[in-house]
């Protein structure tokens, strides 16, 4: 239905996650009608971001600088390393204000179905970092999905021989949650990992 430059634009927009045919057409029409400067500004921001953002060569996070702000920050606890799946997850952990160590971004979780093995989760880079910097505690802040679980098992088994303490996120009741509305699996986990009141 759309051809030429407009058709090309629609095709490119459709490749974005969550964008179907209809949305792509609406976005394309929006971009080319009205204030054309807005669209050019958008194009410029995309270009700038793509050209200037790379993976940090130490922790693999998407960053404008290499090393990234976290790796360059000497005030951070050097011996704590928090492993996350994506760069976005770093900001989720940062927002807790509970953690002041460094990060490592895997980029993926192990998933043979999608052809993702140890090399695709950047394990060699992680291993390098642990060996060089003498990490005391490695916190695996990964989803408790089958893929996350397998990734946790894999990393833990690879580091068996080292003195690094490996921990993972707890699963259980949400803060301010009501046990009446908690599903039985979550409640079961919370019960299994109960902790002493005196701590």
């Amino acid at each position: 239905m759309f051809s030429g430059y407009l058709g090309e634009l629609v095709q490119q927009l459709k490749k974005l996650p969550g964008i179907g045919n209809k949305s792509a057409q609406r976005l394309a029409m929006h971009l080319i009608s009205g204030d054309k400067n807005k669209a050019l500004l958008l194009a410029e921001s995309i270009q700038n971001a793509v050209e200037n953002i790379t993976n940090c060569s130490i922790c693999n996070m998407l960053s404008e600088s290499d090393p990234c702000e976290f790796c360059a920050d000497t005030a951070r606890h050097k011996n704590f390393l928090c492993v996350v799946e994506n760069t976005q997850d770093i900001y989720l952990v940062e927002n807790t204000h509970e953690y002041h160590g460094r990060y490592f971004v895997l980029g993926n979780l192990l998933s043979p179905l999608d052809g993702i093995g140890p090399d695709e989760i950047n394990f060699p880079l992680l291993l390098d970092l642990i060996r060089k910097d003498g990490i005391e505690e490695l916190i695996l802040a990964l989803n408790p999905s089958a893929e996350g679980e397998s990734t946790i098992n894999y990393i833990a088994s690879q580091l068996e021989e080292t003195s690094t303490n490996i921990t993972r996120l707890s699963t259980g009741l949400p803060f301010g949650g009501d046990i009446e509305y908690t599903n039985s699996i979550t409640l079961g986990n919370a019960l299994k990992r109960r902790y002493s009141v005196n701590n």
Partner: protein
Amino acid sequence: MEISYLKIQNYRNFRERKFEFEPEGTLILGRNGIGKTNLLEAIAYLAFGKSFQNSKDAELINFSKAFFRLEGRFKLSEKDHFIEAAADKNKKIIKIDEINISRISELYQFLKVVYFSPADINIIGGAPSFRRSFIDQAISQYSFKYIADLRRYNRILKQRNALLKEKFDPKEKRSWDEQFAHLGAAIIQQRLDYMQEFIPVLVDYYARISGFRENLDIKYDFSFPHQGDDIRDDLFNHMEESVEQEIHYERSLCGPHLDDIELTINDHLARNFASQGQKRSLSIAARLVQANLISSQSNEPPILMFDDVLSDLDKERSKEIINLLQGTHQIFIATPNSETYKDFNLKKIDLEN
């Protein structure tokens, strides 16, 4: 638990029809092809959130229409509840008391139906997968945890099978094996727990149905060597030992997805040696025990549906089955011959009228 009212719209061969049911149940009559099974299926849809014949939602819509809709009123622990289900080719909506549910398994915990299908004979005579689905479905009807464990196990199984098709690092395989063994053992343990309650009742029912002439024996048949008490370790060790074969066949060769349940009648394997009538009565007995365990778990007798399954049994056997059932559940029976079921004394609905 009982259904008192059902409205069917554009479902299979029904255009629009309303039914009222008695607490004791109903005998559904009519010639072949008039829609007796479809009526049972419509009621059961409100309990399972899908067709018990595993048809896709799109196939349930009347040929000339774009959607179907079902409404049912149920009594559960003395309270009335209203369930609606509707689907078009892309989407389905299920509501309990006017509130949308997000997962179909919420229905399982709510409304319970045990359907005695003509195909149930496969539980005894068919491939192991029929026995596995029987026990999986039976446990799922009252355990959320089991449903979640199964879903997760199947995901890991898929991932593990994909891994076995590729070159892999042994530690990567172990990262899946650990979860696989852990969940596999949890599933098997839940099956064994269920069977511990299931077996004595089944042995008793079957003895009665067979006029105390036949001796039934049942055991869980592991797909890997298992002697001690530690299922997880046995499963894990067997996976380690059979890595060569697994790589050769490119799939997981042990675990609950390959286990079986072995039934023997007078020391002969029922799957191979039982007669049609024995298989039929044993499969009916198994469904009755399933219903019985639901009743004792939830204090709420499930609705029973018989899709003309008694017609190939001898008089004594069907009489015993009727005796076992009388007065305990709401019962729906679909049949073209009301004669077989005259002892039930149920109100009749003739679909010809």
